[in-house]
């Protein structure tokens, strides 16, 4: 019990026992507010950037030393912005769940605006034709999820930890939820 006391758990549960119904509802509502505003920010970013996934975490070392595992990339995907060689694009390949972050190294654009391009990871020795769907030789605009515009190191490590240790994820989410629900403002 003394451990609980020193962790402040007693005062935490004390808060709850002193709450009436009205206050408890208020806590639940403010919890809902946090969840829905996070969702609103994410969906809002999707509208502003035009990308279905405006922030991605780098999951592999194929772009080292530029991007390491756990770095965060901010994407935009404006349809009238042309794709050019040297850009870092995030693309999806049929049959693979996880999008890939690689650089465009070859590009051919026809006069009607249709464009096909080939990508390669900076740290890979060969281009990406082996990663594409069987028989696919080029990427086109519809494969693009976004183009990398901004970079923030390390922050995505949390997501990687959460994906690799699901128990850790549930523990963190559980503690946060309990804290928000039980703690009085």
């Amino acid at each position, binding site marked *: 019990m003394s451990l609980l006391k020193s962790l*402040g758990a007693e005062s935490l549960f004390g808060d709850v026992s002193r709450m009436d119904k009205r206050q408890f509802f208020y806590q639940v509502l403010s919890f809902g507010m946090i969840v829905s505003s996070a969702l609103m920010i994410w969906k809002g970013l999707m509208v502003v950037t035009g990308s279905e996934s405006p922030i991605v975490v780098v999951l592999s070392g194929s772009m080292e030393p530029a991007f390491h595992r756990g770095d965060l990339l901010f994407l935009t995907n404006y349809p009238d912005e042309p794709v050019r060689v040297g850009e870092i694009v995030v693309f999806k390949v049929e049959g693979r769940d996880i999008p890939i972050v690689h650089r465009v*190294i*070859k590009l*051919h654009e026809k006069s009607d605006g249709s464009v096909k391009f080939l990508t390669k990871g900076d740290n890979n020795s060969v281009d990406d034709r082996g990663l594409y769907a069987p028989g696919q030789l080029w990427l086109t605009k519809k494969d693009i999820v976004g183009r990398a515009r901004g970079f923030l190191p390390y922050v995505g490590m949390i997501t990687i930890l959460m994906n690799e240790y699901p128990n850790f994820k549930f523990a963190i989410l559980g503690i946060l939820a309990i804290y928000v629900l039980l703690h009085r403002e």
Partner: protein
Amino acid sequence: MHTVLTRGNAILAYTLSVLACLTFCCFVSTVFLDYRTNVKINAVKTLVKNVPNYGNNKELNDLGFITFDLQTDLSGLFNWNVKQLFLYLTAEYKTESNELNQVVLWDKIILRGENAILDFKNMNTKYYFWDDGNGLRGHKNVTLTLSWNIIPNAGLLPTLFGIGEHSFKFPDQYTMQPV
């Protein structure tokens, strides 16, 4: 009221906000800088062959061979928010089938602290110069440019063209001998 949890929470929150603030200052201090500089490029040897492209459609495609000279001093581009430069040499040209063709022929990664004064003579390309068809033989205007993508510690990822480009012609005949 100062339990282990509240103290730990305060320390963690303060550390994170100071780190975030410093990172943001680092980004703002470099966001308006001009990262362009002069580059001298010259194509030395230019050959074109017509061979089957087994990596692609297995048809006969034009394959260019060039060697190039490159001179530039990029050491002025580095500052505390430039972790790495990604240099790439692009050949850009127009053919009958494609309005725009861009092929990266060579690239190089320069980390901060490494030698950024480049002086290459008669360098070979790193990647094959495959055309998407047969548009290279006798081509009058292929433009070589050097560009760089700046990888910061935190911030934007700008791509810039070097000032100074070079245009060259491909010969009117295919080369038959092995290169």
